């Protein structure tokens, strides 16, 4: 136990650094999910067949992007995206570079979740917006998002947790993070106790995020109270 305690104390700085690296990768990818994924998902909802602003070509384009990003195995996707990553952020190695493929996946995941959440908004809400003379942007911001907000928060919670999982393999491009730390010290150095501590840290982080997301979603939902 003493030996384990000493190792834990020795790696404390690296564990904190790896948590911060995971936080940075998550932060960038979730920012992309909200700023790009939400509009993409909204665009898919609006332009889908039978949607409020049906545009087949637009839906085909957005849907195709989401399907392609989600269907390529993530490790291959990270490697395939290296030229783009180098062009976008000037390097293909490190935490910032790792955030690029993660952002693509977060955008695609959240776009799909957002589309599905908006589909659940009653058609009567769209009809109301039309009858009040709302423009398309007002339909989205004043009617759809307020009515779908609890579902959108839950979706973002799910995406966040998925991104933690995705981020654990970003060690392949030097992204670091908690997952990379666990593999380097636990798997490659046979320090399994350190690996289990790291896994426990990840589990606690996931549970906290889920609890926060669920509570926030419930607080925002007035459909039954």
């Amino acid at each position, binding site marked *: 136990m003493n030996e384990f305690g000493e190792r834990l104390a020795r790696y404390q700085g690296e564990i904190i650094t790896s948590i911060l690296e995971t936080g940075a990768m998550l932060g960038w990818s979730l920012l992309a999910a909200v700023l790009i994924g939400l509009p993409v998902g909204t665009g898919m909802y609006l332009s889908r067949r039978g949607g409020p602003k049906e545009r087949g070509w637009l839906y085909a384009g957005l849907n195709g992007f989401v399907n392609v990003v989600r269907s390529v195995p993530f490790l291959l996707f990270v490697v395939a995206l290296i030229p783009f990553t180098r062009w976008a952020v000037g390097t293909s190695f490190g935490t910032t570079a790792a955030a690029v493929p993660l952002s693509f996946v977060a955008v695609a995941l959240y776009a799909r979740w957002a589309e599905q959440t908006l589909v659940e908004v009653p058609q009567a809400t769209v009809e109301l917006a039309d009858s009040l003379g709302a423009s398309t942007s007002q339909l989205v911001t004043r009617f759809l998002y307020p009515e779908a907000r609890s579902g959108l928060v839950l979706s973002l919670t799910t995406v966040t947790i998925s991104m933690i999982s995705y981020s654990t393999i970003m060690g392949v491009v030097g992204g670091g993070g908690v997952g990379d730390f666990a593999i380097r010290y636990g798997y490659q150095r046979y320090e399994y106790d350190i690996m289990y501590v790291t896994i426990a840290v990840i589990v606690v982080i996931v549970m906290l995020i889920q609890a926060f997301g669920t509570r926030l979603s419930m607080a925002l939902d007035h*459909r039954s109270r």
Partner: protein
Amino acid sequence: MIEFDQVNKTFTQRSATGRGKSVHALHDISLSIDEAEIFGVVGESGSGKSTLLRLINALEAPTSGVVRVNGVDLAALRPAEKRLQRRRIGMIFQQFNLLANKTVAANVALPLSLHRRRGMPGSNSRASTEATGRGSAETSGRGAAATSGRGAPRERALEMLDFVNMGAHAAKHPAQLSGGEKQRVAIARALVNEPDILLCDEPTSSLDSQHTDEVMATLLRVRQEMDTSIVVVSHELEVIRGACDRAAILESGRLTGVVDIAAPEARERFNSYSERARRYLEGGQQ
């Protein structure tokens, strides 16, 4: 005020295989609705009542013929102009269509906030009327409850909630209200812009008799105090007879007559829906 001129409406229903099938909802409808009139539209399910109502605020466009509101063919307008015109026409729905995550006051203030945000000349109907120059002189003669349309949205919303006796519920959410209360909130929302016309799509169909009476009494007050033209679509003949001046009878998308509504007579037997509806609305028993 509202004119239907040989209006036909056909929908194309797409099957699962993507094939289209034409459904004729309305056949050759011609009628007119006067200012400050409460006009009923009755008919059985699928007779085209709601389609007729949705043609008035251009939620649907006629397949042929023209629908004019204050002399304007809404279906021929550009989208932005159409939206502006819609803001002069209030609408209430069978299922109330209140936004569940907004408070009662926020629901009522919603139309005002839409207009202010866009900075369009339609923050209230009177302003819109002046801007388009197509309104009638009567629209400026609204009652006391509707005289301060230029106030802050929340203040104006509270004023309208008081008008429908819902002022005490302003901070609640729709899920905390009864059906009748929800419909009165929906009426307040529809009136907050001081519309020239109020469209009511089966406003009492999901309410019990007590709440039906409350809602219809509110509509009568709207006409009395605001001079608003009201079009009520309903399959409930009692509701139409209790509130309307005239009513159109629809059967399978065809207009079978427009009747003046009068007091009831002795009970009779009828061979068809149209005959029964006509006699009942003209004062006979059901």
